[in-house]
């Protein structure tokens, strides 16, 4: 556990690693430290992560010149790369054509 130690005026004097029993026995003014909450990913971040995962998942197809949908995937991957610069980002995801 992490505790913030204060003086009588409420000024922080130290931040320590301790259990509650030790702090209660040795300090008069203290409070338990609370970790700041991590901000939730934004829609743009979530979209970029999905885009990156799609590119990574389809990367193996590019060297396969006889893959039946290779041309579709080339187009799809290009759309994925351009997507963040378009008006449809992040709301509308590119889709693989038939």
């Amino acid at each position: 556990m992490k505790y913030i130690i204060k003086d009588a005026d409420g000024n922080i004097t130290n931040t320590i690693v301790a259990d509650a029993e030790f702090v209660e026995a040795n300090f008069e003014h203290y409070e338990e430290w609370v970790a700041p909450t991590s901000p939730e990913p934004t829609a743009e971040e979530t979209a970029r992560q999905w885009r990156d995962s799609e590119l990574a998942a389809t990367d193996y197809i590019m060297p396969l010149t006889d893959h039946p949908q290779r041309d579709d995937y080339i187009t799809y991957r290009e759309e994925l790369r351009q997507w963040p610069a378009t008006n449809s980002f992040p709301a509308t995801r590119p889709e693989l054509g038939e």
Partner: protein
Amino acid sequence: MSNFSDFIGGGGGLPVNIVLGHSQTWVPPVAGNICIHVVGAGGGGVGTDGSNRSGGGAGYCKKNSLAVTTSGSFTVVVGAGGEGGYNNATGGTGGNTTVAGTGLSATLTANGGTGATTSAQGVGGTAANGNVNNTGGAGAYTGGGAVGITGTGNAGSASADNDPYGGSCDSVGPESIIGHGYICGGKGGDMFYSKTAASATYGPMNYSPNGTGGFLAGGGTWYMDGSGMGQRAHGGHGGIGGGGGGCNNDAGATYATGGNGGNGIVIIQYLPA
């Protein structure tokens, strides 16, 4: 078990290290002479969109020798590492580690390093009342400052061109040689440099780096070059007593978080009779 020979099993050759990683009242388990190593906590790095700013390393205080008995008692307070700053928030200052008790005329004190700001690197913590009192290394472009065992702690380098690591401990060695009044640390964490194009000029290009510093060493920074990447980045955490690495993300400060400073520690070693 009433004396030192019993405590170490009668062989007499092995050092006895007692590691105290959190605050407590410590009572010597046997009588003997001890060496006390006191390490403060490292400061946190800062996350920005304009600079690599890292936390300072902690101070180091050492009491060479103190005679103790099982009736003695020591109050050990261990400082907590400073939190890395997110979105331009200043990194937290590391806590101070202290030891007071029977036979000590003054409190052994190793202060924490300060956190980095958007305009300044963290400063190393000071120390007082030991036979050895060393100031920690300052934060730097490549990473957090280290704890200094033989002198002032090392900072990372001011440029990544030659040495892309956080500050390394000035006493680097295998764990096996620790003992009998001496401790060793590790190497600073890697600095990471990510670039939009796959042409990073230095440092590993890695989207999930582990720039954590070794024992008593600073964490490495992470510079994400290229606003189009839009990925979150995080400076490496400091090892015990080490400063946290800063993070500079061109995508914006909201994508950047500094590394945490390492917690403090107290190591007590029973010395040969």
